[in-house]
């Protein structure tokens, strides 16, 4: 992307000129207004989403106040609802995903920008983009029928025999579990983190690298000192962006996490996330308070993902703002 040859000229041309009077002028004004309204739709949509969820959650908010966030009960029979297991499940599954995805993604981005032979770059990039295009329901389906049985038969016994003394590997395993959800989430966010990281790394000035090479550094030392040091903030932004996606991911998680309204501190136990629990319960909900509680789960999820995404965008936009451009 080159920034210099577009904005200034078009802005100057349009700002400076007052073309024609009458009909043409009217057409110009109308067109600008129409496009402006369409552009503003993004603000309107964010507002509508927040408003609708807030209105829908009102009954639950009035009934439970802040207890909703710290209670672990999910009891439709007595109409008592709490979000805690889902909040923790969301955080834990995303954390597992990040632990797996971050090193792999950043290493891959480094490989693509710093090390890979030229002929391999384009095909690899295309593969990663295609991985991002796999619908989440298909990945979840694959997870349910391939990954979960594989973990159940081959991985869990191995983990148990080697790390059995650590509490997070305790408990009966039924197949669908937190770890499976974390792995599927990792697969889903790896392409995002990798491609955003690649953009960030590409914007590291070539001079940075040349300077380090000139001092006699090996390629890895150049990467570590000159490239990673320079790109730290942007890479952090890429990771947070991936986190935002992981927190809100629904279908794939619903299919492999086991959908139990509980959180057990074990990787092998089923659990739920905010998103997967909404997907799982919404069509079965009866009664206003039940619906309202699900809306409130949605509100909590929206709040968390908005904050995380705002942080990610701020990190990325302040890193790769105007003025920074690719050097190759």
């Amino acid at each position: 992307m080159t920034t210099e040859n577009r904005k200034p000229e078009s802005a100057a041309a349009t700002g400076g000129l007052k073309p024609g009077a009458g009909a043409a002028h009217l057409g110009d004004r109308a067109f600008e207004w129409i496009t402006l309204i369409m552009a503003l739709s993004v603000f309107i949509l964010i507002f509508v989403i927040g408003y609708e969820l807030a209105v829908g959650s009102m009954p639950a908010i009035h009934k439970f106040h802040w207890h909703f966030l710290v209670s672990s009960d999910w009891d439709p029979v007595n109409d008592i609802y709490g979000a805690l297991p889902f909040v923790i499940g969301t955080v834990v599954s995303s954390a597992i995903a990040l632990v797996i995805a971050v090193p792999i993604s950043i290493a891959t981005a480094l490989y693509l920008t710093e090390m890979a032979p030229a002929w391999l770059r384009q095909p690899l990039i295309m593969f990663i983009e295609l991985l991002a295009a796999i619908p989440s329901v298909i990945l979840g389906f694959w997870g349910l029928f391939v990954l979960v049985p594989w973990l159940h038969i081959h991985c869990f016994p191995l983990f148990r025999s080697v790390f059995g003394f650590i509490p997070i590997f305790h408990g009966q395993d039924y197949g669908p579990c937190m770890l499976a959800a974390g792995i599927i989430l990792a697969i889903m966010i790896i392409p995002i983190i990798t491609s955003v990281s690649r953009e960030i790394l590409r914007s590291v000035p070539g001079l940075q690298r040349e300077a380090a090479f000139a001092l006699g550094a090996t390629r890895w030392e150049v990467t570590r000192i000159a490239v990673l040091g320079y790109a730290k903030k942007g890479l952090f932004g890429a990771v947070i962006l991936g986190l935002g996606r992981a927190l809100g991911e629904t279908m794939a998680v619903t299919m492999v996490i086991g959908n139990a309204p509980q959180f057990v501190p074990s990787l092998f136990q089923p659990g739920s996330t905010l998103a997967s629990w909404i997907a799982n319960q919404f069509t079965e909900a009866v009664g206003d308070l039940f619906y309202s509680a699900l809306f409130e789960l949605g509100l909590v999820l929206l709040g968390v993902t908005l904050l995380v995404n705002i942080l990610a965008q701020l990190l990325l936009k302040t890193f790769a703002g105007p003025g920074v451009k690719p050097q190759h």
Partner: protein
Amino acid sequence: MNAPNHNWRKFKNVFMEILALVCAILVVMPLVLVFYHLIVEGFGSINLAFFTQLPKAVGEKGGGMANAIVGTFILIGQAALVGVPIGVLGGIYLSEYGGTKFNWWIRFAADILNGVPSITWGVVVYGLMVVPMHGSSALAGGVVLGLMMIPLVMRTTEEVLQLVPGGYREAALALGISQWRTIVQIVVRTALKGIVTGVLLAMARIAGETAPLLFTAFGNLGWAHSLREPIAAMPLQIFNYAISPYDDWHRQAWAGALVLLLLVLFINIGVRFLTRDRFQQKT
């Protein structure tokens, strides 16, 4: 200062490069594995009936997903009617009008909107359309997918419009053509291929969306006779079959997943080859 151990540094260099290569291979593995399993399990169940027949009741052999395939295309069509005009016009504003600061905020909001979880969209449109209309409908499904398309289309439209050289605009304005006609007839037309690409990619993305459809389009084992009825969609059907306990339905789900994946990948790869020159200029 000690002289650094040269061999050790060289070894570390090679080691890290191999590690990075291994990671790159690991990243590609899931795509290969998913594709492999879908072909092995799903290919055998794809036949003419799959594309032309309705689902059969549990226990009966055969049947297909014709309703879901048609449903997905109907939903995408409706979504495009909502998402494309708003997205493209908004993208035009971002590229051609507005101040730098103001547009920064719009872009920021679009990127944030892009990060809103898909299940949240489903819940919101449930409240906005399904409750007032007293039931799930194809219309609600189309609208939710269309709204999700807006930020995607807006950002790609803006990006390709900005690739159009400023000279084109100046030349047109200098000839006395009004600004809006300059934009529509020259700028947008020059970038049309890129805009279409963006729209197609957005369509491919929403074609696989399931979560927002769960409570809006809802799914349907038969045909939907109007847009006010619940409608089937491929991702929904795959999900419902996958979590069912029946082997026959699992087979259908494998076949459906393979067809859906091929559709999505076909659009993605096709678009890349069509617009190779445009997006590969100067990496």
